[in-house]
């Protein structure tokens, strides 16, 4: 394993990093050029340089907003994780409960959150409504994946547990939850991104109505004021936040599974 990697593999790795960077630089250059040559005013399309300058000049405001949105996202994600796994475990223990509630979980999922958000904003205080949106969107993948995982137990292992007289609790803790872990982590990885989307949608829906100061609210507000460079700067921050969330959850996934699950194993035979 410690032997140097073959040349074509190293070249492959280098290309995988270099190519997207080249595309980015090219794209930015074309953008910059197009704005300058076409003399496009900043309120229609700001050039990348201006967006960068805006990001720096508005940093304290945008960073505050980023923290607000991230906090909502994190809380929504946490509630979705606890609620999704918890409800899946309850479903797994009681078929009756599953039959009674699962359809409503599906309804919650398939109803577009953009349409639900305004209603929530009427009945709930704004921060709570935003949080509820983040939760609703993020909750279902955790529930669905965990449910699938809890039923994907090796039959023979389940027999073995029965043979040794395992209690329900032991069955759940020592067999079902570990078996479901890869599924749960997969659900959480989706939920992280969705939670951010839910928070953003709710903030946009709240718009000028609330005193919200999240990043999406800044985008909406900047839109009304035709402050297009700030819109782009805020959008950039949102993207970065999404990317960081995704890779953070991927890292957790990798750390939890690397010793045993096929999905996280490094290639051993070279």
């Amino acid at each position: 394993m410690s032997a140097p990697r073959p040349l074509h593999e190293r070249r492959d790795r280098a290309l995988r990093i270099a190519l997207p960077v080249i595309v980015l630089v090219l794209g930015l250059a074309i953008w910059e050029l197009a704005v300058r040559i076409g003399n496009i005013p900043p309120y229609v399309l700001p050039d990348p340089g201006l967006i960068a300058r805006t990001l720096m000049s508005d940093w304290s405001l945008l960073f505050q907003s980023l923290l607000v949105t991230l906090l909502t996202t994190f809380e929504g994600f946490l509630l979705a994780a606890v609620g999704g796994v918890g409800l899946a475990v309850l479903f797994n223990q009681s078929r009756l409960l599953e039959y009674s509630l699962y359809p409503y979980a599906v309804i919650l999922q398939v109803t577009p959150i953009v349409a639900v958000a305004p209603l929530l904003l009427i009945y709930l205080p704004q921060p709570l409504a935003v949080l509820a949106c983040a939760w609703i969107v993020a909750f279902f993948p955790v529930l669905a994946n965990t449910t699938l995982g809890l039923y994907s137990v090796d039959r023979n292992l389940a027999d073995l547990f029965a043979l040794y007289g395992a209690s329900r609790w032991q069955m759940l803790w020592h067999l079902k939850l570990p078996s479901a872990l890869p599924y749960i982590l997969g659900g959480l990885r989706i939920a992280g991104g969705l939670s951010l989307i839910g928070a953003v949608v709710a903030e946009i829906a709240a718009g000028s109505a609330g005193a919200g100061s999240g990043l999406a609210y800044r985008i909406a507000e900047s839109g009304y004021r035709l402050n297009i460079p700030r819109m782009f700067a805020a959008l950039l921050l949102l993207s970065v936040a999404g990317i960081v969330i995704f890779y953070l959850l991927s890292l957790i996934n990798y750390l939890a599974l690397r010793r045993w699950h096929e999905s996280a194993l490094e290639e051993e035979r070279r």
Partner: protein
Amino acid sequence: MTMMMMEKATTVRSDSLVALRGVGKAFPNGTLALKGFDFDVRAGEFVSLLGPSGCGKSTALRIIAGLSEPSEGDVVWPSPRTDGESGIGFVFQEPTLMPWTSVFNNVLLPLELKGVSAGQAHEPVVAALDRVGLQDFGRVYPRELSGGMRMRVSIARALVTEPQLLLMDEPFAALDEITRFKLNNDLLAVWQALRTTVVFVTHSVFESVYLSNRIVVMAARPGRVFTELKIDAPYPRDQNFRTSAEYGAFCRRTSEALAQAMGAQVGAQP
């Protein structure tokens, strides 16, 4: 060497560890896996259930283990089992290990499920690993082991409770011949050292002759006892036995019995 037809036994012999009387098993899809199955396991013996696939030998094993309920007939335990379910160890066709935890924890499982404290369980786990030659592999994860070593872990797990009765369902079927021969020898050594009772399901004539005191040949559709052979070659058996004329003769007899059982099965078809 004697070959005797199985008599319809109505009483349970005093040296029987467990006795099946008139056991039938029909599956919901209509398959008749067993019918009128009479079978005694005598304390301390190594008995093989030999038969073509579909003769219900695995079903019989699962019924003895209590993992499956007979549709008719009785399973009789003449003397009360010393310690409930833990009197039985079961080895499946696949190693059936928990991939998410170490070899040590896999072997620990039966004791853990019985509520034995970690401190008290340590010694038997080490002893069981020692017995199958894996004393240095406690911290390794199952996927880092070869197929043969995984099966050793599975056997160690079955032995850790020091069961009165060890049930094995074609445990070596998926292994290469070299590994299989090695595990055959090690299994015999363990059996003799622990003075336990083994019921071994296999479709290999050679394996059943090498290992067993007694071979019960089964016929299929419906699964039943066709005949029974006594292999009264002395233990310990080793490479010399495997190449002896005596072994060859036993194998020929057994093969003939198996061929007759298959013939009976074809004849029995409507």
